[in-house]
């Protein structure tokens, strides 16, 4: 949400090299570090979910229904007597899995479309970008909701929906820098030396999009986690008994007055994940964009 600056444009040509100034700036940026640590921890927990000494996320223990936090079950148990800590941990895997898969698809598709539009120009550009504009005419989360409504509930449909919604955003973010890079002397020189279009694009244009894409990916991941969680809250993502944060929160809602802990832990988990990606995105923007004022 930086002021009126065109996204990306400023960060052109700062290809991060290990040990370079960029890395040093990253280490000094508190937001980036904090975000990185949160995201790293969540990713670690998600990867190791099966190996951690936890109870099964699915096993129901009726006597423990809605039991509050205790030593044996630090997060307490849900309305079916399932261990809430284990469900929250396994939920990280589901949530991050959906977010990463959908953003990866949007990143690939959007970059391809944006690069083709920007590099080819002319009619190709017009057709691609006007089509993208149609998607921008829908509120993003509502478009995702509509797609899932049509395809039916399920986390794989949520992946598809988020990918479709985010592809135009990547395309738009990438196109501007491509337009600028295309006119730069080193690209012109490569073309003058007789390089084929695909070689110019792959070797000289795409690598220079790095910083734009890294920042946008972090922002996209925070949006994807939030959107998956809201769709899951509405019952449209992973179906029970899968441990999905949004759905856990919604289940907890029925018994809120008896067991407030049901609403607390999944909510904190969602917020931490979103906060982590937001911090990382903010920090990366400062680090990779030398002109940006510290926000």
């Amino acid at each position, binding site marked *: 949400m930086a*002021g009126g600056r065109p996204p990306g444009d400023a960060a052109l040509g700062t290809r991060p090299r290990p040990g370079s100034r960029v890395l040093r700036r990253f280490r000094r940026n508190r937001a980036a570090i904090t975000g990185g640590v949160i995201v790293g921890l969540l990713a670690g927990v998600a990867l190791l979910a099966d190996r951690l000494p936890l109870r099964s996320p699915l096993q129901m223990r009726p006597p423990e229904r809605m039991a509050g936090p205790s030593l044996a079950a630090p997060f307490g148990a849900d309305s079916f007597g399932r261990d809430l800590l284990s469900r929250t941990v396994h939920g990280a895997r589901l949530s991050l899995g959906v977010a990463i898969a959908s953003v990866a698809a949007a990143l690939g598709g959007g970059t391809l479309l944006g690069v083709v539009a920007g590099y080819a120009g002319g009619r190709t550009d017009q057709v691609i970008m006007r089509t993208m504009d149609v998607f921008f005419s829908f509120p993003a989360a509502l478009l995702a909701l509509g797609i899932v409504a049509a395809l039916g509930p399920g986390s794989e449909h949520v992946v598809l929906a988020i990918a479709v919604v985010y592809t135009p955003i990547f395309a738009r973010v990438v196109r501007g820098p491509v337009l600028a890079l295309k006119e730069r002397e080193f690209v012109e020189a490569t073309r003058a030396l007789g390089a084929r279009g695909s070689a110019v694009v792959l070797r000289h244009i795409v690598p220079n999009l790095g910083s734009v894409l890294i920042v946008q990916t972090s922002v996209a991941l925070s949006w994807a986690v939030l959107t998956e969680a809201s769709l899951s809250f509405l019952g449209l993502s992973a179906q029970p008994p899968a441990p999905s944060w949004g759905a856990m929160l919604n289940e907890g809602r029925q018994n809120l007055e008896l067991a407030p802990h049901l609403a607390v832990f999944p909510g904190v988990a969602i917020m931490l994940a979103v906060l982590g990606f937001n*911090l990382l995105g903010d920090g990366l923007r400062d680090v990779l964009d030398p002109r940006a004022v510290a926000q």
Partner: protein
Amino acid sequence: MRRYLAARLTALVPTLLGVSALTFLFLRLIPGDAIAVRLGTSTVLSAQQMAELRAYLGLDRPLPLQYLGWLSALVRGDAGYSIRTGQPVFTEIAARLPVTGELAFGATVVALAVGLPLGVGSALRPNSRLDMAARTFGLLGLSLPNFWLGTLFVLLLARYLRWMPNTGGYTGFALDPWANIRFLLFPAITLGVAMAAVVMRTARSAMLDALAADYIRTARAKGLAAVVVVGRHALRNSLIVVVTILGVQAGYLLSGAVVVEEIFSVPGLGRMLLTAITQRDYALVQGAVLIVAVVFVGVNTLVDLAYGWLDPRIRYQ
């Protein structure tokens, strides 16, 4: 200005055509036969009957022709009927749209009332305690899922304060303004917090940019009072950026309303959409998505026009 207005409105035509085409295709996305979808699972027809019905509904025609037929009905105000209630889709929507409008308006008021002073204040005193607090709010507000905030509000109100503002049900503003505001207060706060965070961040960075500009130095140098420099020069220029963001945020409000209306039982468009989705009432879903997109496009056009009013430098070609 008039020529710009005309150009801007003409540009709406292809946009709205695109929106309608995508919304039309939405029904085709649904796995399974269009007729089976319409009839639900209870009715079983013979192949012969299916073919007749298919021809009767025009489903045997090529897709572009079907789209044109649907579009021309749409223009005449016919978006089909709800399977559940039998009412015209647009009638159902018209009954709910004002409620969602009130909610979105309330959320915008909350967002501006909280976000603007925080953003401007923190830009005037960078790295002060107020700035730190505002930036923390900006980050947390962005990361706080509105459905969680809403759930916590319900918990807080019901369990600890024993106050149930929503037991009375929704009352129209014209009928009883006080009851209306009381009912929508917490839903509006819930919906408005994330937007307040965005407004704060935008206002802050726009103010910082503006305060660093040359014309501000000039204004200060010629001895204008600080209030005038900030109020008339910096703030006015920052507002342009904030207004732009409000257009984008309209999309957040319209989709966020689905969750917030569900949590607080607000009888708006979002809740209707959700019910329609779970009941597989596709004509209603389609109509609601279409209307929301049209409202969104309309709001953003208005925002574009507001530029010219706020920023005389913009000369429309």
